[in-house]
C-alpha cells in the first residue's frame, strides 16, 4: 500500500493532477469489513459487478444469510441476540461496525479543452475534492449509506439514507432517494456524466441525477427461476426539488417507479444456485437485463410551476468480457405555458482486455426539444480507456468528440485519477 501511495503521489506531482469530485459508491470500508478485494463487488470501481449488485440488494450484506460468518471485522454488540426474546421489555439488540465505516475517494483530472478563453489548453484542478463515504449495517435489519463531498470551491454536498431490510425482496428506504440505478452517474467509469442524467427540465430546476430528494422508497429484488437473474423494483415519493438545506421548495411531491428483469447470470440477490460454469471472473456475468422507469415531478422557478415527467427504458447486456448498456429517456416539461418534449439516449460498451485494462466507448444523443427543428442537438462519441493500477487505484483517459459540425471545436480530453481507501 505504501508503494502504491508513493507511486500515486509521484504521478500527482509529475502531472499536477487535481483532485476533483465525482459521485461514487466505492466503499473500501466494506472491503475492510469482509477482508475482501474491491473487485469482489466492482467490475472496476465504482461500477458494480453482478455480485456487488446482489450485495446491495441484500441491504449491503452477503447473500443467503451468510453475512455474520463472512464478516471478519468483529462488530460491537449493542445487545445480546437473545434479547429478542425479552422484547418489548428491552431494546431490540443490534450491533455497530467494529471500526468506523468511513472510506475516502479522491479523484483527480487533467483537462485539455477550450474552456479557458475559448482556446485549447490544458489545466488542472488542484486541490479539489474528497468524498467521505459511510456505509454499513446495524444488526440484521438496518443498513445505511451516505456521503459527504468536500470541494475546492468550498461546497459541501451530502446525502444519507437508511434502509429497513425486511428481506431482500422488500426494503424501506428513508433519506435521499431517486432513480439512481437508471442513470448511474455515480457508477460510471467516465469523468463525463451520462447525458440522460444531466438533461434538465425547462426551468433548469431538476435533472434525473438530482433524484427525488428526501423521501421514502420501497424497493427489493428476487432471483429468477433456477436462481438466475430476477426482478428488481423500486417506488418512491419525495420532496423532489429541494434547496441546499433539503427543504421542500414546493408543496407537490415527486413520485417515481422502476422495474427491471434480468435473464440469466447471477441471481439479483446472489446465491450459487444454478451457477455452475466452466469459466469464472469477477467481470463476467452472461446475462441480459431490461429496465423501465417513470418519474413525475413538480418544480418551481420564480414562482412559476414546471410540471415535468420522465419515462425511459434501459438494457444492460453482459457477454463474456463485453458489457453493453443503453438507455433511452423522454422528458416532458410544462413551463411558462410551453410544452416541451426532450429526448436523450446513450449506448455504451466496455470490454475487458485484461482485468486491469478496459477499453470503452459511449455514443450519446440529446435533443432538448424534439419539436423545435432549430434546436441544437448534442451528438457525441466518447472513446476511452481505463487502467486499474490496483484494485483501488484507477486511471482513465477519455476523449469527447462532438459529431456535429457546429460543435466540432468543443472536443475535449480528460485524464482522470481515482484513489479510494
Amino acid at each position: 500500500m505504501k508503494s502504491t501511495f508513493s507511486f500515486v503521489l509521484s504521478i500527482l506531482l509529475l502531472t499536477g493532477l487535481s483532485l476533483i469530485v465525482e459521485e461514487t459508491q466505492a466503499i473500501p470500508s466494506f472491503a475492510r469489513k469482509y477482508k475482501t478485494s474491491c473487485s469482489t463487488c466492482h467490475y472496476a470501481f465504482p461500477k458494480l459487478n453482478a455480485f456487488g449488485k446482489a450485495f446491495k440488494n441484500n441491504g449491503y450484506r452477503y447473500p443467503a444469510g451468510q453475512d455474520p460468518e463472512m464478516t471478519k471485522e468483529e462488530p460491537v454488540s449493542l445487545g445480546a441476540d437473545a434479547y429478542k426474546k425479552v422484547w418489548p421489555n428491552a431494546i431490540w439488540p443490534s450491533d455497530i461496525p467494529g471500526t468506523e465505516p468511513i472510506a475516502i475517494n479522491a479523484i483527480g483530472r487533467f483537462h485539455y479543452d477550450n474552456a479557458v478563453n475559448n482556446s485549447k489548453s490544458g489545466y488542472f484542478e488542484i486541490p479539489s475534492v474528497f468524498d467521505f463515504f459511510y456505509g454499513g449495517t446495524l444488526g440484521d435489519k438496518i443498513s445505511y449509506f451516505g456521503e459527504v463531498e468536500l470541494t475546492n470551491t468550498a461546497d459541501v454536498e451530502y446525502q444519507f439514507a437508511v434502509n429497513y431490510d425486511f428481506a431482500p425482496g422488500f426494503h424501506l428506504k428513508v433519506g435521499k432517494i431517486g432513480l439512481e440505478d437508471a442513470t448511474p452517474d455515480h457508477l460510471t467509469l467516465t469523468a463525463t456524466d451520462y447525458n440522460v442524467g444531466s438533461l434538465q427540465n425547462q426551468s433548469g430546476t431538476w435533472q434525473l441525477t438530482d433524484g427525488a430528494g428526501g423521501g421514502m422508497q420501497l424497493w427489493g429484488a428476487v432471483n429468477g427461476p433456477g436462481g438466475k437473474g430476477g426482478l428488481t423494483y423500486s417506488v418512491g415519493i419525495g420532496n423532489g426539488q429541494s434547496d441546499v438545506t433539503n427543504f421542500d421548495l414546493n408543496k407537490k411531491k415527486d413520485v417515481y417507479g422502476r422495474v427491471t428483469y434480468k435473464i440469466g447470470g447471477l441471481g439479483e440477490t446472489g446465491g450459487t444456485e444454478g451457477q455452475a460454469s466452466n469459466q469464472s471472473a469477477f467481470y463476467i456475468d452472461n446475462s441480459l437485463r431490461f429496465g423501465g422507469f417513470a418519474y413525475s415531478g413538480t418544480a418551481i422557478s420564480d414562482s412559476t410551476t414546471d410540471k415535468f415527467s420522465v419515462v425511459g427504458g434501459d438494457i444492460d447486456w453482459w457477454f463474456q468480457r463485453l458489457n453493453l448498456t443503453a438507455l433511452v429517456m423522454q422528458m416532458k416539461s410544462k413551463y411558462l405555458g410551453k410544452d416541451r418534449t426532450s429526448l436523450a439516449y446513450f449506448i455504451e460498451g466496455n470490454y475487458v482486455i485484461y482485468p486491469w485494462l478496459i477499453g470503452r466507448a459511449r455514443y450519446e444523443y440529446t435533443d432538448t426539444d424534439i419539436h423545435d427543428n432549430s434546436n441544437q442537438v448534442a451528438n457525441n462519441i466518447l472513446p476511452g480507456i481505463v487502467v486499474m493500477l490496483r484494485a483501488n487505484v484507477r486511471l482513465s483517459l477519455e476523449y469527447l468528440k462532438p459529431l456535429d459540425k457546429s460543435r466540432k471545436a468543443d472536443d475535449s480530453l480528460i485524464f482522470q485519477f481515482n484513489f479510494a481507501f
Partner: protein
Amino acid sequence: MLIYKLLKGICSLIENLRVNKGTKKMKLLMYITITVLMSINTAYAGDIIGTVKATGTKDSGNAIIFLEKVEGKTFSPPAEHAVMNQKNLTFIPHVLPVVVGTTVDFQNSDDVLHNVFTPDKCADNFNLGTWPKGQIRSFTFKNPGCRPVLLCKVHPEMEGYVVVLETPYFAVSNKDGSYSIKNVPPGTYTISIWHEKLKGASVKITVPGTGSVTQDFEIKK
C-alpha cells in the same frame, strides 16, 4: 509394510486353529514369536521432530517439512482424495501437501461463487470454473516438485497452495513452528522445508531405528 501384512495373516491363521492341548501350547509360542517380531518391526521406524523458526512472517505455521525421496521406493497416492475447502473466502487448509498422483477435491462451502485456477504450468494452468455451494471439482496433481498456487478469479485475495511430494513423509508446521513426521523408516535422507514466502532449505538427516531425531529449521526471506 510386508512384515506387517505377514504378521496379520499369521494372527488370522492362529485364531482359526482348533483349540486343543497341543494347539494351545503352539498358539502361545506363536504369539510370543509374533510379539518379538512386532517389536523388531516397530524398532525400524523413527520420528522426526523439530521446530521451525520463521522470520518475516506473522507466525511460523504453514511451512511444509518433507523427505525429498526414499531411495529405491516409490509411493502410490492414497485412494482417498485430499480436500481443499473454500470457506468464508479462504482456502482451507492454506497449504496442502500431497503425494504425487493425489486427486484433490475442491469444495465450495460458501453461498457465493468461487473459482479455482492456477497460473502454474506444472499443474497444467488448470481452471476449474465455477460451481455452487456444496459441490466439488477435482484435479489430480501428477508432477512431483510442483507447488502450484491456487487462486480464485472471483475473490482475488484468496490464495492457497498444493505441494506435490514424492513421499508420504511430510508435516505442516503449527503456528508455534512445531512439527513431527511419524514412522519414518530408519536411514539417511534429505529433509527439506518449503514455505510460500520464505526461502526453503535442505539438510541431510539420519533417522534412527528407534525414538526420534530432532531437526530444527530457521527460514527467512
